[in-house]
């Protein structure tokens, strides 16, 4: 078909002329790629983290019941377990024991948790990778802990949690219920909070309301709410970051516009010649638009691929200083790769579309150069 051949010839010419001005175009391409890379990294990272959180929370109990005293979270009496278990629709209720321990030696905050079915026995603990690193403990070592009443407790490291779980277990220490109570002085009749399993998801809010009415000093938290809050936080955070990056984006767009509008006399002459020998405005416009399209496509692909590698193979190594902060226990994690079309479309809208809009008018101005001027030499 004639028009396909025509476009092919125009594209050939466009690519050749882009390569002819390598230097000028290379610098611009690098900046464009960097912009796409930054935005894409932020988006991929936050979405991947979000997906991890969602996957994790899938195993969380449908309801968690906490006791509030004077607006603050307090320990919950285990006598509530019976009362809650009696509510129709509740499958199981379990008291959970967990808390935070500050280790003055390493300056790190550990999360201590008594899991269901702790197999190592009293006196033993399992630690996460971050804990092992900061306390320089290995399997078999004995870690000292200071109990609530100032005594020394020695707990043996029976195992180190696998690094594949590091994103959630980095600062985690698993221990037995007895050791927990000895360490923190939590009496037998109370727990940190209660986990409630509900058979039918549609009943969760009803049961939550019943619990709140029956035990007015408690607040039930549904898993869905946690999910939603996490989701909102992740979206909010990545959105804020994008807005901050928008300054850079705007500068890039102005740069792009300036470059496109600043037609060198050489380029102007070339276009004049083209029009004089038989190209019409539409053809020159097509050439300019293909120019923009090929630059955009290259930068978009390069930026997305680099961002993918950055986030999923190096675990967002460039964001580490920002995210780490004061954290001593920054986890070494490997995120599960996740990208979908919606993300790419959003990226496209944020980078390629503004570029395209910024360069339409300069492209058109270039295309409407008067061939008459060429005739006059």
């Amino acid at each position, binding site marked *: 078909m004639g028009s396909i051949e025509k476009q092919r010839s125009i594209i050939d010419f466009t690519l050749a002329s882009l390569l002819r001005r390598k230097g000028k175009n290379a610098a611009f391409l690098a900046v464009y790629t960097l912009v796409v890379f930054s935005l894409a990294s932020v988006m991929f990272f936050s979405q991947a983290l979000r997906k991890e959180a969602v996957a994790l929370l899938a195993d969380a109990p449908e309801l968690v019941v906490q006791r509030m005293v004077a607006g603050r979270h307090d320990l919950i009496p285990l006598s509530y377990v019976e009362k809650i278990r009696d509510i129709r629709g509740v499958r199981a209720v379990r008291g959970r024991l967990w808390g935070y321990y500050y280790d003055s030696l390493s300056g790190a905050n550990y999360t201590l948790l008594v899991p269901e079915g702790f197999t190592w026995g009293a006196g033993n603990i399992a630690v996460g990778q971050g804990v092992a690193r900061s306390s320089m403990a290995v399997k078999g070592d004995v870690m000292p802990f200071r109990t609530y009443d100032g005594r020394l407790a020695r707990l043996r490291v029976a195992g180190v949690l696998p690094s594949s779980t590091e994103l959630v277990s980095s600062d985690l220490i698993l221990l037995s219920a007895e050791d927990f109570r000895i360490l923190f002085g939590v009496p037998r009749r109370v727990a940190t909070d209660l986990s409630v399993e509900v058979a039918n998801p549609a009943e969760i809010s009803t049961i939550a309301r019943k619990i709140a009415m029956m035990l007015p000093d408690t607040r039930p938290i549904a898993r869905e709410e946690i999910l939603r809050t996490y989701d*909102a936080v992740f979206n909010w955070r990545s*959105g804020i970051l994008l807005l901050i990056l928008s300054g850079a984006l705007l500068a890039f767009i102005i740069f792009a516009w300036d470059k496109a509008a600043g037609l060198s006399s050489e380029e102007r002459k070339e276009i004049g010649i083209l029009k004089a020998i038989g190209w019409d*405005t539409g053809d020159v416009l097509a050439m300019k638009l293909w120019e923009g399209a090929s630059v955009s496509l290259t930068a978009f692909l390069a930026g997305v691929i680099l961002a993918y590698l950055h986030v999923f193979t190096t675990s967002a190594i460039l964001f580490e200083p920002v995210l780490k902060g004061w954290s001593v226990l920054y986890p070494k994690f490997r995120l599960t790769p996740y990208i979908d079309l919606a993300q790419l479309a959003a990226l496209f809208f944020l980078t390629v579309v503004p570029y395209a809009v910024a360069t339409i008018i300069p492209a058109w101005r270039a295309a409407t150069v008067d061939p008459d001027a060429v005739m006059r030499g």
Partner: protein
Amino acid sequence: MIFHPDVIALLTGSLLTGAMLIYAAFFALMILRRWDLASGSELQVSLERRTYLIATFMAFVCTFQMLSLFLFIKTADGLSVLFSGAMCAAGTLNLNGFGYPTLIMKLLTFVLAGLWLIVNHTDNQGYDYPLIRVKYRLLLATAPLLVIEAALQTGYFLSFQPNVITSCCGSLFGAEGNGAAATLNDLPVFPLLLALVVALALIVASGIYFIWYGRCGDLFAAFVIVLTEVVVQWGFFFAPKSHCDILFSTAARSIAQTVAAAPVFPLLTALAIAFALTLACGGYLLGYGRGGGLFAAFSTATLAWGCIALISAISVYIYALPTHHCPFCILHREYGYIGYILWGTLLCGGVAGLGVGALQPFRGIDSLTTALPAIQRRLTRTAMIFYGAFGGVTLWQIMISKLI
């Protein structure tokens, strides 16, 4: 306000396309007033040059609207997690009065932009710019609709209040929903439906009159404003619902209910008839070169029945669940993204068919005697291919459905 990247992307995109079209509208006015092909004055030359720019703008607008249509639905789908009870895009779109109107306007502006590109292409084939006035009147009609859509979309996203844990003292959400407004039973459904239909009819009629004859532009503008009002009211009357199932299931009463509650078999038969008529008429048009208007009419009927059928009948087969009528869940991964194919082919076929109809009144123009029928034939073929694909995929889905 939700700072979701997709939301920021959509708002940015809308802003840019709106700006482009307003810029284009100003030139449209100048072109309509000062265009004079016979004069060789510098003004005329610069106007002719400017038409290249406007055509490029419109091509961008059409592409953006199509992309943003899908991104909008995808975003609404993704955001459904943040609202208790919203399980897919249908629920999110129902959260406030702006959701569905935005979707409708996006569809409308996409169709109009597509039609503009068809008319523009035809105009370029004539050596005396025969359709220039028609083209720019169409642009003037599209511009305010796009601006309205951008405004609606902004309003939609800005009024979000996700049900997140904000207070540490209580965090109970449930079937109460998140807002006031009338419940389903209080909806004054019939009067509202009537008002909407009348407003749409007036707009279409006056719009066509304005575009073809160039008069009564202010009347058209007035009707656009009326439509906006009605649509916004309609949106507010739809109470924020908790479950998209309630919206689209057959139990409750609402306008979508009427559609969803339609019996499956007669609906599919009606669709099949419209489909067959369209194909037959298309064949006649290709073979004998007549019947363009009829083809456009049948094609639009197929488009309308196709949309209704997708909601009430075809989706049912895909989900294999008689009460699940949501038109957006078929866009999900678990259904193989089949929704994109179905909606995509239906819309593209619809635009092509409408294009045939849009060009029909201009068959008599001298400079287009050879070009216009050729373009119409190409559009007919395109429409038939897309509709054929739609029909084929639908049939395939019904046949492999677990419902049978």
